[in-house]
């Protein structure tokens, strides 16, 4: 469905060098710190920026050459942009009717009511949560085969985030062949939604793993200096010096649980994954 082969994009102060492949029916998460390259990756996939080298493709077509028919099969939600904030819901509905042959007007209207999006107010007067819900709804209402969402839940409270995640879950339940690529730095959103996670750091994918594997097998070993000196380093991905000794990130939690029953081992979620692998663990 999505393929990035050795895609390189260079800016004056940043270089992205990335490869990834997302098959049909997969929900993939793209995580990383701010400025790691998540948005640039999404723009490359959508053909909004051209790679300096390598190949970005969607549905087997080069991203920069996506046809209008293929674009009709993609729903996009970008973090900081959407339809003009001078328009209201009725305006946007009329535009989408003419833009997408597959636009489901009844679904759009029903969802607007459920999400309490006012029809007569212009988007500029919406709250942050309302704007985010509208962006997600706009991406979903034409029954796209592929959803690409850049930080759809950023800056939202728990209730609004849950509403958006529920919308995405329902969307997937309707058709199992639908594919989603979602970028976020809110780990709990991705842990409950994604099949696999790509971790991006300084423009490179430094880890790609199934979410279940991360949650089951990854962990943080908290060891003192003496324990660290004798610790088997075979499955230690990263270690950080801490005030108590060392925090060691492993992808074989059970191996260490069995071999070193005295060592404190904490669960390794996506937050820990980001922090340990990108050097920000405290």
């Amino acid at each position: 469905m999505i393929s990035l082969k050795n895609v390189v994009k260079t800016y004056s102060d940043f270089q992205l060098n990335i490869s990834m492949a997302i098959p049909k029916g997969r929900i993939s998460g793209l995580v990383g710190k701010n400025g790691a390259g998540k948005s640039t990756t999404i723009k490359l996939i959508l053909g909004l920026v051209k790679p300096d080298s390598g190949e970005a493709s969607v549905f087997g077509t080069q991203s920069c050459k996506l046809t209008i028919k293929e674009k009709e099969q993609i729903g996009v939600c970008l973090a900081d942009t959407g339809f003009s904030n001078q328009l209201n819901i009725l305006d946007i509905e009329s535009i989408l009717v003419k833009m997408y042959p597959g636009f489901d007007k009844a679904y759009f209207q029903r969802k607007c009511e459920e999400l309490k999006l006012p029809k007569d107010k212009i988007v500029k007067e919406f709250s942050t949560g309302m704007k985010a819900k509208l962006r997600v709804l706009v991406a979903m209402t034409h029954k796209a085969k592929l959803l690409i969402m850049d930080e759809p839940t950023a800056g939202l409270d728990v209730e609004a985030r849950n509403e958006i995640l529920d919308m995405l879950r329902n969307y997937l339940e309707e058709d199992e062949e639908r594919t989603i690529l979602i970028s976020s730095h809110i780990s709990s959103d991705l842990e409950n939604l994604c099949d696999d996670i790509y971790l991006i750091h300084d423009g490179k994918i430094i880890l790609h793993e199934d979410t279940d594997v991360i949650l089951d097998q990854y962990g943080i070993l908290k060891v003192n200096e003496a324990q660290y000196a004798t610790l088997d380093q075979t499955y230690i991905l990263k270690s950080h010096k801490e005030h108590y000794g060392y925090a060691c990130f492993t992808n074989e939690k059970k191996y260490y649980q069995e071999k070193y029953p005295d060592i404190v081992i904490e669960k390794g979620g996506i937050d820990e994954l980001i922090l340990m692998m990108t050097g920000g663990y405290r």
Partner: protein
Amino acid sequence: MAGLFEKDIRLLLRRKQTLVLFLALAVVIGFTQEGTFILGYLPFLGMMLTISTISYDEIDNGYTFLMTLPIDTKTYVKEKYLLCLSGTFISWIFAVVLYFASKFLRETNIVIANEVPIIVSFLPVLLLAMAIMIPIQLKFGAEKSRIVLLIIFGITAILSFLFEKVIGAERINSMIIKLDNLNGTVIGVSATLFVILAAIISYVISCKVMQNKEL
């Protein structure tokens, strides 16, 4: 393209107050000012109004989102030219109606055939202005394009001044007299061809500008 038209028309309708003000001003000017001022003024406002939809697209990274919709850069550019042409033409028609209404109130004997060349002569000038303004607006955005236009007009003024100094006022006058003596049809056809060529070049430049935009 229908979706883009819908978007732009709805954005224009958001400025109902401006539209009503423009029309009221046009009616007042049409009936109080003698001459052809209204024929240039109103279509120019119409053109500016439609071109201003580009700046709506530009705000809040709007281009980035628009290009994720099922359109491509060529469709976007085509829609802008068609919208601008339609806006200019509709306001030109309105200006012509006001022009005649005002004339009928003032004069009794009006020969419409004599008026047609004057009225039509505004169209190529307006289209030329459109051909210059759209690519500049697309390339430089709402704010910078004003400065660029000022620079262009400044350079044109300086070149005209230098041209007059080099060639001499007498020669220019004789050239104008020669042009006046040319057949009206020749002038009309030449102007039409020139404007069509300018519009094609403008469209190609606009497409290139949009294709090279990093979103």
